[in-house]
């Protein structure tokens, strides 16, 4: 660390959905690095440490170094020429950038989807069916005397979910922190999160739905067959005990993760959990919260929802937004070979997607915006280096509980922001298509 340092207080870490805004960053202006992140967890420390300013090409077009301007031109042409262009990712960038992306999709009649579709998309679908009883994290911290973590391992994925927001944290009505709470962990394996749990339920894989449904029944005073033990690995007595605790608490919180959404049942699992939490409000105050993975995936949900009416999996090819998981979600659009061009922003499907989808990404022109080299940027036709949100560039992000926070960037970057690149792509695409992409159909009039 040089002598040339300064401190940026109250910056926000956007590595995970906790979006902790109490980061006090020490920035070394000689080495262009963040050398200290006070209050950060181990993941946050890595996030800040590893996002210094690197020497990277401004852009690559077909593997050759190019300027940002050239890459924007190439990207615009790809999008303007495409018949089924898709835009994906967006969970690790600002709302300002997300808005530009939706605007581009609207202009070109494209498909727009975010990493939600492979994360808590099923929970979003369950939400549309059931609704949700929920709360901001401060409510959980201040009031929750029963906290249940289902299908997640926050100790490793969201460490401060425990320490800042729910388990060990003290609250207005929880003055003794963990001593005033009962913590329950439900999972198929005993993870490091079990260390904070008073009660650990080990469920057989793919049996979460049955356990949740049995709890719903027990909460409502219905009979449940003791064979539930054989089926799920959880004895009836344990479930009866849990149901009783849920009804007896003053403020209960069910926080759930990919263990529900990414396995057999998907949205049925999330739906069962959300319904359970809602049911419990007949007896006490109970909330549920999907634990979101990326720093601004909640922002992506919000932006896409307010601009199109739907949270993810949206297609604009008819001139207006249509929503259909399975049809317009990106894994499907790629696995079935439907898209003929892709714009990927702040995501790495080349690493995270099924093979059939990745194979198709290799067949079509792909544009990537990312601060780092990734599997996707390696297969992309146009790869544009952009700066990192929350570290180099400001903007708005939404925490997992929808609380919007304004970023305080710490370290200027020579690379442009996602927002500025998308804005210029949008403008150039507008020039190229020149208003020719208006569908020839009667404009739907005002509905009464």
């Amino acid at each position: 660390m040089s002598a040339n340092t300064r401190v940026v207080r109250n910056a926000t870490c956007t590595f995970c959905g906790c979006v902790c805004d109490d980061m006090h960053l020490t920035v070394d202006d000689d080495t262009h690095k963040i050398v200290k992140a006070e209050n950060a967890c181990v993941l946050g420390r890595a996030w800040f440490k590893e996002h210094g300013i690197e020497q990277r090409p401004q852009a690559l077009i077909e593997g050759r170094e190019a300027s940002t301007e050239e890459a924007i031109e190439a990207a615009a042409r790809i999008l303007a020429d495409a018949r089924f262009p898709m835009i994906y990712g967006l969970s690790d960038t600002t709302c300002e950038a997300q808005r530009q992306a939706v605007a581009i999709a609207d202009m070109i009649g494209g498909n727009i989807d975010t990493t939600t579709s492979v994360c808590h998309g099923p929970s979003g679908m369950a939400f549309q069916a059931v609704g949700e009883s929920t709360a901001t994290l401060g409510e959980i911290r201040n009031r929750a005397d029963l906290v249940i973590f289902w299908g997640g391992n926050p100790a490793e994925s969201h460490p401060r979910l425990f320490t800042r927001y729910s388990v060990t944290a003290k609250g207005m009505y929880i003055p003794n922190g963990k001593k005033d709470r009962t913590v329950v962990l439900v999972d198929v394996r005993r993870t490091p999160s079990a260390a904070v749990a008073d009660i650990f339920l080990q469920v057989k894989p793919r049996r979460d739905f049955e356990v949740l449904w049995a709890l719903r029944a027990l909460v409502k005073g219905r009979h449940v067959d003791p064979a539930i033990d054989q089926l799920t690995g959880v004895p009836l007595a344990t479930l009866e005990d849990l149901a009783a605790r849920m009804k007896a608490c003053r403020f209960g919180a069910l926080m759930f993760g990919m263990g529900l959404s990414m396995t057999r049942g998907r949205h049925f699992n999330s739906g069962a959990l959300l319904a359970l939490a809602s049911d419990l409000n007949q007896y006490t105050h109970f909330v549920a919260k999907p634990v979101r993975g990326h720093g601004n995936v909640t922002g992506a949900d919000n932006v896409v929802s307010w601009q199109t009416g739907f949270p993810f999996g949206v297609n604009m090819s008819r001139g207006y937004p249509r929503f259909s998981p399975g049809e317009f979600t990106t894994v499907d659009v790629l696995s079935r070979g439907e898209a003929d061009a892709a714009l990927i922003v702040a995501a790495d499907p080349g690493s995270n997607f099924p093979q059939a989808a990745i194979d198709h990404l290799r067949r079509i022109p792909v544009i990537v915006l990312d601060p780092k080299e990734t599997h996707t940027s390696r297969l992309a036709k146009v790869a544009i280096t952009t700066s990192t949100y929350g570290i180099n560039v400001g903007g708005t992000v939404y925490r997992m509980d929808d609380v919007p926070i304004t970023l305080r960037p710490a370290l200027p970057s020579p690379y442009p922001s996602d927002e500025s690149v998308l804005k210029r792509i949008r403008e150039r695409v507008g020039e190229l298509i020149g208003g020719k992409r208006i569908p020839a159909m009667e404009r739907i009039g005002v509905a009464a």
Partner: protein
Amino acid sequence: MLRIVNGRVYDPANGVDGEVRDVCIADGRIVADVAPEAGRIDARGMAVMPGGVDMHCHIAGSKVNLARKLQPEDHRDDVLARTAVTRSGVGGTVPSTFTTGYRYAMLGYTTAMEAAVPPIFARHTLEELHDTPIIDKGFYALMGNNVLLFKLLEKGRREEFRNAVAWLLCASKAYTAKLVNPGGDEAWKGRRNANVTQLDEKIESFDLTPRQVIGALIEAVDELGLPHPAHIHCNNLGHSGNFETTLETMRIADGHRAHITHIQFHSYGQVAGKSSSEPTSKAREIADYVNAHPNISADVGQVMFGKATAMTADAPLGYMLSRLAKGKWINADAEHESGCGIVPFTYQDRVYTHALQWAIGLELFLMAKDPWRMVLSTDHPNGGSFMSYPKLIRLLMDREFRKQEMAKINPRALRQTALADGLDREYTMSEIAIITRAGPARLLGLARKGHLGVGADADITIYEEQDDKETMFATPRYVIKDGQLIIEDHEIRADHEGRVLHVAPEHDPAIAEVVRAFFEDYYSIRFENYPVDDSYLGKHEQVPTRQQAAAVPTASESSAAGH
């Protein structure tokens, strides 16, 4: 420059009632005259009015977006394709943001105020308002369940209370203080979903009553000189017998200005001895009180049959509705500030309660002696979509149509109300202009809105005169915003960014340290990250408080558009 000629002008704020006269526009304002070569609109056979002002709707922010996400089925049937100048979107009772702006404009509305936002979510509302085109807009900040304010008030720290209210308004960029079921949240969140029902009962965990909270906020807002008074959603919304609570709440104001919102939902009596499933109408009592007390204003909150979405900061109410509707339900607590309940809901003319609600709303309109203080709203989308305003206007203006509609509703409900006794009044064009434009603008303290006098914002709607008032008001021929022709021959010709209207009342900056201490102990975000910075405002106008206006020599001209 533009001159509108041959139109029948309805400008009740300036005493113009259907006179054929010119209206001239230059640089976004109404002017006395323009050069002969100015553009012309020939408004022969048309009515010229100021742009509509919706002073209570739910159109932007966290709660709205939850309701929007909740109902894909509501959107699929009602889509808006993109055009060369407009973004695509979807409708239903909770439209996407672009659609919201366009559709308000297409009805001839040029200003709309989002009615309830917890300050912690203000940023979200401003982002959505930024994507709500054409109209001018603003929002009310929820304070009637604010824990910091409660802590100050219970200790009798009135100065700090008032300063904290001002600080919250400045930090959130809001327009006034909003109260929703004051005192109810602590019971809801803290005592297993309980609620308050009496104005004099203790608020859970606090040495305070709802009466004290209401009184303190009414006074504080008045002392701060805000252009619009405390905006109040009374306790006991929807409950039989709640008219008593409403009367009591209005009495608390004691000569100070207070605005009672969606007052229809607060005008129910109760059949003596029967269960609370039998409400009756107390519209007469409520209307009489409002008529007799010039410090009180209200918007009706009319129920319109068909699809609605209940979305309210009154979380216990949301839960109660969900038990009735038996469908999906959202509850969303916001730490220290508010709750939220969302339930898709359909009002049916054959159902006793719904029919009664519809009739009570009409009673309130028809019994109002002062249309300036009983203005039009459906509490969109709680009582019905804003798209139903033209039909509501027809119900008020066209007695025969009203009778036809009355014949369709539950007859027992109708008999409970004075509608059945021949409330025959028909609203005139001038009165409609008051309840949809001039009145709300005046109540909001917007000196340049709701009228067509020189100096007013050039927000103008031109309707083709027709016998069927619903069609007339549903399809303006021209809509002008800030002097720009936005709608011409019923089509949107241009996009436009409206202004965010907000207040910034003077206060003692030392209050920030009091607020900070509370944040450090109890909030889950940092004090430094809570206030919204100006970059979220886009085009905006800071509307002066009474004190700020008095300090400016040419305040009456309001010449500065303000930044």
